[in-house]
């Protein structure tokens, strides 16, 4: 009997020990803000270096990466299209606005090129096997190229290997990374973070405490956006101090709760950067409730974020323009099918949207020039 009682206490002590260790390993607390700045940025540097090493291939750091403009300059504006080509697309759930817009972009590309696109999307954001089946099916149907937006970094690995063996051109479009895919086309997630940091720094006069709401802790986009944000601050010797960072699993309510705790802990908090708009919109509610004066910046550029910026809620978002991303991905794919040399990564356009440019036509913001297709 006594033993059990003792065991309970030991277990409790263990848990408390874990809490203690956890806190001492993370270096930023509110009361030691000044001297922890240095530690925090050191830690940030270490972490981002580690994160990059972990990946076999990181499109954000690819040396041969090009933008679509550079690609057009190098290979000529005209893209020759063979009307026999078949294009397969595998996307994530259309319940997400981002993927719906991407689909619209593919439909536009289909209209421009006159090619039929076979577009497949999963029913939810976690149907990893479903995506694999779709990819296998399209390969068996004999498509010439596959444009893939995988759910995770690994769920399409074997399907892509099979497709490569079957002579299908495989292009990874945004999101989960497939190391085996021949090319990557998507926004530079690292730059998402840099743009946000630069904007916040400018607005705050380069000083003040900022916090980061991370998405899913291991997700590539979350990692890169956070690293880009912190590295920008580091590299520009910014006076901004990354006071805290926590993850909220891309969940709006969790992000709101997190921000509410931060706001009441640190009255000097000046800005919160969120890894996506959904979380940012939750944080906006927390800021509004606390009647605090805090800048909130998100990433993705969903419709609700635009609306919130217009209404004075959200302060800014970094938009990756999925509608144009799909068109760039298609153009790159067709160039490669036509025999042109394509770099391992092509960065698609992105721009920071705030109250000043929220009503500007995105095509103007990114100097969009529609591709010129010539059918053989």
């Amino acid at each position, binding site marked *: *009997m*006594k033993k*059990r*009682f003792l*065991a*309970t206490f030991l*277990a*409790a002590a*263990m*848990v*408390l020990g*874990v*809490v*203690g*260790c*956890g*806190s001492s*390993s*993370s270096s*930023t*607390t*509110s*009361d030691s803000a000044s001297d922890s700045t240095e530690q925090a940025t050191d830690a940030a540097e270490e972490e981002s270096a580690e994160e990059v090493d972990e990946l076999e291939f990181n499109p954000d750091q690819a040396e041969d990466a090009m933008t679509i403009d550079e690609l057009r300059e190098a290979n000529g504006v005209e893209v020759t299209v063979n009307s026999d080509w078949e294009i397969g697309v595998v996307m994530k*759930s*259309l*319940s*997400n*606005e981002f993927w*719906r817009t991407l689909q619209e972009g593919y439909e536009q590309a289909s209209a421009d090129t006159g090619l039929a696109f076979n577009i497949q999307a999963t*029913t*939810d954001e976690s149907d990893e096997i479903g995506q694999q089946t779709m990819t296998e099916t399209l390969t068996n149907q004999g498509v010439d190229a596959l444009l893939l937006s995988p759910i995770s970094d690994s769920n399409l690995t074997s399907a892509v290997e099979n497709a490569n063996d079957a002579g299908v051109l495989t292009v990874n479009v945004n999101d989960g990374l497939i190391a085996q895919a021949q090319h990557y086309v998507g926004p530079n997630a690292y730059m998402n973070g840099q743009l946000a940091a630069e904007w916040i720094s400018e607005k705050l006069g380069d000083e003040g405490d900022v916090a980061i709401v*991370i998405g899913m*802790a291991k997700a590539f986009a979350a990692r890169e956006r956070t690293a880009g944000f912190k590295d920008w601050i580091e590299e520009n010797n910014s006076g901004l101090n990354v006071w*805290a960072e*926590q*993850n909220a*699993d891309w*969940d*709006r*309510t969790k992000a*709101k*709760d*997190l921000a*509410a*705790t*931060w706001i*009441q*802990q640190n009255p000097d908090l000046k800005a919160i950067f969120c890894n996506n708009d*959904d979380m940012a*919109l*939750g944080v906006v*509610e927390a800021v509004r*409730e606390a009647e605090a004066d805090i800048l909130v910046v998100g990433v993705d550029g969903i*419709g*609700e974020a635009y*609306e919130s910026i217009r209404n004075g809620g959200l302060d800014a978002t970094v938009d990756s323009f999925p509608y144009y991303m799909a068109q760039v991905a298609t153009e790159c794919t067709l160039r490669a099918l036509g025999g042109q040399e394509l770099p391992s990564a092509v960065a698609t356009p992105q721009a920071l949207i705030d109250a000043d440019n929220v009503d500007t036509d995105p095509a103007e913001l990114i100097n969009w020039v529609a591709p010129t297709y010539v059918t053989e």
Partner: protein
Amino acid sequence: MKNFYVKYKREILVFVATLILCVVFTVLNPQFLTWRNFLTIFQQMVLNGLLAVGIMFTILTGGIDLSIGCTFAIVGIAVATCTVGGMNPVMALVIGLIVGAVLGLFNGFLVTNLKLQPFIATLGTMSLYRGIAYVVTGGVPVTNVPDSFRNIFNGQIGNSGIRYYVIVMLVVFIVAHVILSKTRTGDYLYAVGGNEEAAKLSGVNTRKTKYIAYIASGVCTAVAGLVMLASLGSAEATAGIGYETNAIAAAAIGGTSMAGGRGTALGTFVGALLLAVLKVGMVVINVDSFWQYVVTGLIIIVASYFEYAKDDFAAFLARHKN
């Protein structure tokens, strides 16, 4: 007082554990011990608390309701659509509760009339309800919920920072407590979970009792959905994914037996409070996100061990009295 202790040993132990956690957090960061921080903790326990008390009703009968996260999303979408369309906020609120009750009723139908195992039945409705949420909205969030609705829950008493939704949660817990400890329905709920056959033989209408449990779960979840909507001002089909696990954790920590027949509203309240203290505390002392999962998991395991420890504790006290 002694009776209270005997009756609520488990709840008191969990509460003491919560206090110990508070002390630890305060030692690590004195900022933890402020009035505003306690308000934050209470605010952040509301959603999980409401979901937990709902799911507790089904667990008491030996069942489970995995669909609460999805019911939560549907109620949010339904009420958001109504209020954005200009409906009277109180009317919309009532509709939200009815939607929750109907979704719970359907779960009850599957479990009692079709005799499906609760885990399987609600696993099915979990996907079904989520699908309905996607189909109805097409994945587009419903936004711009008017303040007239939001203020019903989101307003605060004077300038105290105490928001109405905290009061709403307390009322729900009190009602649940009264139902469970003072009414015949409460006795039946425990009886069905303790031994369904025996309950049936002694004349308990087990079907009706199970229906009540699932409807109660739906209604409590609906209240959570309303609070979420008021708090965020928008509803989306992806809301509440995975929330059922935290609700189960709160109920389990508070002493609800997964086999049914045992558990109290007070225990679930304390369980939800402990999880909220943990959640806020780890942000306050800035624990790395990865460690938060580890700590939360350990706490659930340790708290469940109290189930045994409480007997030892009582024996320990008894020995030292003599």
